């Protein structure tokens, strides 16, 4: 429940939240997940909320509470199968939070996320739900089911506050992208990355907005002479 509350606080206090979801996939299916939350344009507001004891009847966590919780998640993630190099960076001056980890496969990453969320609240996790899949030259991604639950719990006023924010989803590969299925997505000039730029408000309205299937050029097999 707390993970939801912390996320909710971060999202609702910030009319100008910027979230960057950056996923790099190697040819062998391993990769790196990076997640950045930038609240620097609302740092006065963020500081104001942190100065409060409670907000909407819920206790507002202190900086040390947040740091303690982050450290807890870091330890949990480090112990998950196929997850390594877990890094959390917190900047409470500009309110920028960065998370990064390496994974051996997207299955490992999803399993780790589900297990951590389930350790907080089992009801939030749908074991069958898959938001990342990788097969040969095809990669599919969407929004974790957790996000749907989170937005369903938000009041309309809180959702409105998200309109000014931005959510950027980037997926990177080791080889060129041939095509992709999302009309809102854009392929980088070097064709090694796909970006979808939206805002947290639109995400709450249309959770399909990040859904994308990306087709990569086949790996060229070496021909033996």
């Amino acid at each position, binding site marked *: 429940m707390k993970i939801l509350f912390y996320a909710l606080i971060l999202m609702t206090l910030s009319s100008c939240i910027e979230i960057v979801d950056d996923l790099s996939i190697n040819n062998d299916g391993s990769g790196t997940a990076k997640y950045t939350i930038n609240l620097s344009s609302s740092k006065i507001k963020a500081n104001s909320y942190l100065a409060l004891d409670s907000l909407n009847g819920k206790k507002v966590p202190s900086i040390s509470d947040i740091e303690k919780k982050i450290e807890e998640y870091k330890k949990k993630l480090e112990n998950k199968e196929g997850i390594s190099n877990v890094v959390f960076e917190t900047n409470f001056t500009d309110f920028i939070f960065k998370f990064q980890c390496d994974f051996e496969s997207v299955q490992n990453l999803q399993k780790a996320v589900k297990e951590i969320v389930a350790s907080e609240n089992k009801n939030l996790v749908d074991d069958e739900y898959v938001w990342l899949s990788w097969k040969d030259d095809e990669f599919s991604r969407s929004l974790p089911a957790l996000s749907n639950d989170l937005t369903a719990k938000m009041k309309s006023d809180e959702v409105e506050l998200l309109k000014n924010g931005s959510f950027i989803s980037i997926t990177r590969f080791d080889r060129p992208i041939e095509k992709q299925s999302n009309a809102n997505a854009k392929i980088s000039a070097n064709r090694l990355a796909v*970006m979808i730029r939206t805002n947290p408000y639109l995400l709450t309205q249309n959770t399909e907005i990040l859904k994308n299937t990306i087709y990569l050029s086949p790996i060229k097999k070496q021909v033996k002479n």
Partner: protein
Amino acid sequence: MKYFLNLFAFFTCTLVFGQVSEDIIPRDAVSVFSINNVSLLKKVSMDDLVKYEFMAEVQSELFNGSTNDKTIKDLGLDFNQKLNAFFGQNEQYELSGFTFGINDKKQLFTVFDDFDKIENTQLEGVEFYRSYSNYLIIRGTSGIVIRVDPNIDQVAAIADSIWLARGLGYFWDNQSIEEDYDDEDSYYSEAEDAVEAVDSTYEIAIGADEEEIIEEDSIEGDLDSNDLLSKNYWEMRDSITFSLQEVYLRKITLEIFKDNIHLKNQDVKFATQLQRPSDGVFYLDNSRNLHNSKGLWGFKAMFPELFDDFKNIYSGNVLLGDINLNEHSIDIDFVANYGKELGSIYQKLNSTKFDKNVLKYIHKDNTGFFTYNIDLNEGYKKAFDIVIPILKDEKDPRISSNVLVAELINEFVNTEEIFKTYKGSMFGTFNGYKKVKTKRIEFLYDEETFDYEEKEVESEEDMPIFTIGFSTSRPDIPEKVLKHFGRMTSRFKNNGNYWEIEDAFLNSISAYIINKNGLFMVTNDEDLAKNHSNGYGAKAISGKVAKKAKDSKFVYGYFDWSGALEKLPREMFTSKQNKILDAMKGKTGVLELTSSKTTISNTKFKLTYDFDGSFDNSGKYLLDLVNSIYVLTK
């Protein structure tokens, strides 16, 4: 003879049953807000009342949806009687609720349909109904809805004691406290399960349905006699809570309905206040608040005589008030009453002149300000004279040594100079919101690779602009402190007329300190610090409002609600909230608080809310305002 006895009995019954709603307010009530229904309802129609969003919420919370397609008119209330809301607390329990008149019981229960009747209460002519922890008790034409919550520490102590006696050790020793509190979901779900379990048991017990009781008996017969012992800690604790609730409720109801003991006949001040011809009255007994203050219970247990002495100082400390709704204003008059000793301290504390310098620093277009005039030096001396003799009689070594320390400080430390530095009088202003410059981090994306880098850019955020200052006749003392910090850190900068402390507020914007004209001021108003360090001159507040501030002896407050609306940053609110703010424009006004000179027995305050604009009457206007605040804050 029998005829006369019957006649006597009839008159006695009529007298007792003729009690009105204010005659059944428990004597433990410490604060009471009483509304004269007649005068309010003359001005506000019930049909209008129930249209308000806050009323819809109240109805659904109280009656759990049973008010569908009904209005408060359908409650069957007697609007000729007062509606009294009360709250109280003592060492054993907290109680809250309201009392009201009834003119149609049948109609009342079409709305209070979640309440089940409790039979065999052994109080003739008194009907008891219960819905979870809320009780509805009716006698004659008046009713009380009451909730009694036992002191949680007492419940815990009993539960722990039983738990230990069962040979299960100390409950908390066997638990990971941290885990219990960390995992709120499991903690609460366990507690909720326990409450549900107790509720269902209790429903059977008080169901008063013979068939159900027989059924329960047969169930009990089948159970192992040790089964009750198998309750877990939380179930047992809930059972104790429910049992104590019954015990305390019985005590309270016997006092009211059998012994005819209630607040009105126990406190003459409250009884007198109820006679006031105002639209509403309120009562707050601060002396009992001190007595009942949880934080002091330990002190009271350890030093009962000393506590009694302090209680005497606070005796008679009762706040009484009247509310009147007029065509263009709402007036709240209240009197803070004191006993002789407390009154003498307050009298000395408030025996100071208004510091005219503060007016220089209040802009004529300010949204709101307050001034507060006290003489800490005189107050300290008087409090020392009254408190130290009481403490000196105490033989406890800790108190005795504290008295010695206080006396030595008083002898060796130059308290006169301390109170010259901080005299006690202060003021504050609020000047709405301004855009202030901050810095933010922006991510810049490379279109070739979508790689990104951070860049610091200028930004603007809304910030409330305020100033707080206090009077001083030793400006050199705070200056010494500022100079020290100026040497220690580059964030403290002396700019001649003012000091600047960078990133002082919310880690983002500067604070400015002005130490001039006998005032030490802290502000985030850059304009005031840079351009008006000697005051606003001709742009400072003057005329009627300035005179009122000077004439108000102890405290003066002013808030221009319409001005505040104009200055609110609209982008901070949602479109729905902005619609309400727009609707409030044109019918907003000025809130003003004034006070009299403090005498040995009281200080009188007057809070006035003057308004203009279009509205049907002040009662409706008040409800419009309450509703707007409710919608804005919900």
